[in-house]
Every structure is written in C-alpha cells, then in structure tokens.
C-alpha cells in the first residue's frame, strides 16, 4: 500500500533511543505526507499561473493586439502592446550587445589569465555581489548616473538591463570555461597558436553551448525586469525607436500599468501582455535548458 513507509523497519534495532516501532512508522508516514503536501502546495501556483495567464490572455490576444500600440486611455478597448514589445526588443537587444562581450571577456580573464591572482579573485567575488544587488537599486543607480543628465530613454533602460545581465553571464561562462579539457588547449599551443588564438578558436567554441545557455537565461531575466525600467525608460504610450531623448515602453511596464489601473479594458490588455511576455521568457528558458542538456550529452 505505502511502499515508502514501514518497509525498511527492523524491529528492535534503533538509532538513538528505542521507541516502539509503531510510533516510528507513524512518524515516518506523517513526514512522508508532509513532504508530498509541500510538493502539492508548490505545484498549485505553477499550474494556476500557467492556466490563468493563458486563459485570460487568449481572450484579448489577437492580431490587433500584436500589431498596434496602446490607446491613450485605459478605458478604451482594443489596441495592443506593440510599443512595449518593440521597447523590450530594443532595450534587451542593446543590453545584450553590451553585456555579452563584456561578460564573456571578464570570465575569460578570470579563468584563463587571472588564474589565482588577487584581481581575478576580486572580480569573481564582486560579480557575485553584483548578482545579489536588487534590480530596483540598479535602476536608481542608472537614474543618478545617466538619467539626471541625459533624460529618460531606451539607452538608459538598456544600461540598467546590461548591469543585471552581466554577473549572470560572467558566472555561467566562468563555469563553462573551467570545463574545457586541458588536452584541447595543449593541442592548440602545440600547433603554435598564440594564447588569444587558442581562446578565440578553441576554448570559446568548445564552451559555446554552455555559454549560450547562460546568455539565454540572462536575456530571459532581462526581458522580465520591470523595476529598473520604471526609473530609466519610464514608459510611454507611443511606439518609438528613438534610443535616447524620449521615454520608451516595455512589455513589463505596460503590464504593470495595466495591473494598477481600475478599468477592465486596460486590465484585459495586461493579461494578454502577460501571456506574450510569459511565452517570450519561457521560450528563452526552455531553449537554454535544451541547449544545456544537449551539450551535456556530447561531453
């Protein structure tokens, strides 16, 4: 009946103190039940979120939603989050362009050049610290450092997202570079390659699947960020591709506004936007996982 409980009891043999076997069996069953209960309680929100975002999002999701921008009033029906989608794409794209090369190079320094010197240790430690910085504080920093001088805009939003992505990329790349077998490097050096050639042509390509996993997780994380963008991109009703000088919207900002307003039409758009965002984020996360498992097989 219950194949977890009771089957391994040897009567009369105890670990710490001898208690009646029945009580031990009972305690074992109780804790098994508690563990299963915890799993159930954790799975409920997963199922609810996936189901309700899909169900409510699909109700408003249509071609018009995907291809038009927000109406100027939350009351009005119709329209969509195209301004937000474009904003997210531009800002995450810019942030990736900044943080991916920087993050990979920093990881290369830590693993290939720094070895065990103090600078590499320092960089490693502080990239860990950076990963723990609340995203809203990153937004405040970019606000004080850039926005006060240059105004709200896509570039400032991208800067804050880049700072959030950077430590994720550094840490995942570092882990991957450590796994590159020594024989490969030695073979490259034996052929007369310089160190930078070895890195560019041997080490990075062989670590590429793992690195791209980390990169995609970072992109997914950046696409879902809201708080730093409130302080840097500000949000806008209009579709814009201006990189600075004008506030820009993002999917997350549009959803946040929809969730805060009392009108049904605005809320309905927020649900559809949430579905759109969830699909984007999950695609990146799932693809990252698939790439990771593939590379594990080939290793």
């Amino acid at each position, binding site marked *: 009946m219950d194949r977890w409980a009771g089957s391994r009891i040897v009567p009369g043999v105890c670990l710490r103190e001898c208690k009646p076997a029945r009580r031990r069996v009972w305690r074992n069953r109780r804790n098994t039940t508690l563990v299963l209960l*915890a799993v159930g309680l954790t799975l409920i929100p997963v199922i609810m979120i996936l189901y309700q975002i899909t169900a409510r999002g699909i109700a408003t999701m249509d071609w018009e939603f995907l291809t038009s921008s927000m109406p100027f009033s939350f009351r009005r029906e119709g329209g969509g989050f195209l301004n937000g989608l474009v904003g997210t794409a531009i800002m995450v794209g810019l942030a990736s362009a900044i943080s991916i090369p920087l993050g990979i190079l920093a990881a290369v320094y830590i693993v290939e050049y720094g070895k065990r010197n103090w600078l590499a240790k320092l960089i490693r430690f502080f990239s860990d610290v950076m990963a723990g910085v609340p995203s809203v504080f990153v937004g405040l920093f970019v606000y004080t450092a850039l926005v006060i001088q240059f105004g709200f805009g896509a570039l400032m939003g991208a800067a804050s997202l880049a700072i959030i992505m950077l430590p994720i990329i550094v840490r995942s790349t570092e882990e991957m570079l450590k796994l590159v077998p020594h024989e490969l490097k030695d073979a490259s050096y034996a052929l007369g390659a*310089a160190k930078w050639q070895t890195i560019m042509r041997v080490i990075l390509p062989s670590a590429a699947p793992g690195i791209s996993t980390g990169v995609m997780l970072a992109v997914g994380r950046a696409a879902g960020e809201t708080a730093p963008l409130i302080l840097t991109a500000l949000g806008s009703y209009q579709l814009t591709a201006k990189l600075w000088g004008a506030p820009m919207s993002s999917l997350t900002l549009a959803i946040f506004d929809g969730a805060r307003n009392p009108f049904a039409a605005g809320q309905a758009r927020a649900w559809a936007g949430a579905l759109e965002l969830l699909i984007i984020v999950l695609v990146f996360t799932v693809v990252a996982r698939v790439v990771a498992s593939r590379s594990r097989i080939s290793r």
Partner: protein
Amino acid sequence: MSARSWQRKGVGRKADSLFAIMAALSGVLILLVLAYMVISTTATALPVFGSQGISFIAGSEWSPSNGQFGILAFIYGTVVTSVIALVIAVPLSLGVSLFLTEYSPRRLRGIIGYAVDLLAAVPSVIYGLWGVFILLPLFLQPTADFLSDNLGFIPIFKGPASGLSYFGAGVILAIMITPIITSLCREVFDTVPNADRQAAYALGATKWEMIRQAVLPRGRAGVVGATMLGLGRALGETIAVALLIGSSVKVDTSVLSPGYSMAAVIANQFQEATGDHIRALVGIGVVLFGLTIIINMGARALVWRFNRV
C-alpha cells in the same frame, strides 16, 4: 588567415597582449561599475541623509510635502514581508527538495524539477498581476478574514483584515523564492553520499530517520545559505510587492494590515516625485542595497564553507 600569416607579420604577440588587456579591462569594469553604483547613489542621497540625520532610518514620519523623510515604516515592511515569505517558503522548499532527492521516482523528478524551475523564470510583474486579480480574491482575502476572525486575539492577526497587506505580499514573495531555495537545497542534498544513506538503513532506520540523521545534518550549512539567498531576493523584490502590499505608510503590528516596503515605495512613488523626494527615494535604495549586500555576503560565506567541506 592562418596562425602563420599573423606570426610572420609579427602581429601575434601584440594581439596577444592586446587581448589580455581587453579581458582584464572588462573584468575591472565590473569593479568600477559596482564602485560607481555606491558612490553615485550615495552622493545623490547625501543631502537628504544630512538634513534628516538619524531620523532617516529611525523615524517613521514620511511626508514628502513637508520635507520629512523617515523610512522606518518601509524598513519594517521589508523585514516583515521577508520573514513571512521565509516562514512559508523554507518548509515548502525543504519538502520539495527532499522529495526530489529522496522520495521521487526518476520520471517524476524531471517533471517536478522542471515545473519548479518554471516558477523561477516567471517575471515578477506577472506574479503581481496574478496576485492582485486571482490570488487576492481567491485565497489572500478569505485567509486574512479567517485569520482575523479566529485568531484575532493575537496582536499579529488583529483585524480589520486586508488581503493587500504584509501577509499578501509575504505569500507572493514565498511563491517567488521557493524555487530559488529549492534548487539550492536540492544541490546540497544531492552531495550526500549514498553510502551514508545505506548505512542509516542498515542500522534499521525508517526513511524519515535516515533523512534526519544522514541527509539533513550534512546539508545544514547549505540550507541556511540557501535560505539567506532567498531572503536577499525577497528583500529586493519590487513589483509584485508594490502591487500587493497595500501602500500605506505606517508601522502596524498586525500582518493583516496594509503597509509598505522599501523597494515598493521606490517603484510606486518615483514617477510623481521631485527634488528632495527623489533624493530620499535614492536614499532608501542605498539602505536597501546595504541590507541585501550584508545578507548575500553572509549567504555566500556559508555556501562556500559548505562547498569546501
């Protein structure tokens, strides 16, 4: 271009040192950005720190129009919501990670591990939206009413009960940090050698006795570290909390009453703030940063110590 053609031109060596310098600079840039983060925000908030003095963190009077900025109510809200989140999330995470490492059949392990990871990938604004429109009427408000009706004599459950409260924000935070704590605990429990488990069984232990005496003691430092990393995440979580905490500037002993957290007040008030109000919000950010850094460093130290053993 082959390696030889570079070497013949004598580019190879220069390129090599250039590449090394570029890599080092990228690393140093991380340090510079982090340093500038602290300097830039602190400098902006300095006038408010100066004019408010100690009452910035010790006073609970927050009225931007009168130039009074005491953030005690926000610190209190952040701490209370995070504690509620941990009280709910830690047992759940322990249960799920023990299930995944000790109980689950192989097939189920992949699926449930995947589902929990999915929770970690969901953006916080989606948690906020779902929390306000689904969880609030369905679970938070009824539970808050139930608690205040039946346990109202205990000060922390005193009514009037609101779902938009420390409690509501704490519950949504718990859902958000459970996958983080779970995945770390899981890694920790995975490192327990199978020989230890079999030794416990050989002595006649039940499954639970095996877990308590072979698995849990080995993972203690790791579990505490995972909890602190979860706490670090909960302290800085902004959007979902901003939507669910009720936005009321006060210190209230009842967890069922609306409050405010540090991150939430920054997100909610920033757009209409000007002058010193903005500086004060930046100041809140600096305090929040200090708090999370302390927690995270403690967590890392514990996790590292664990990894070395």
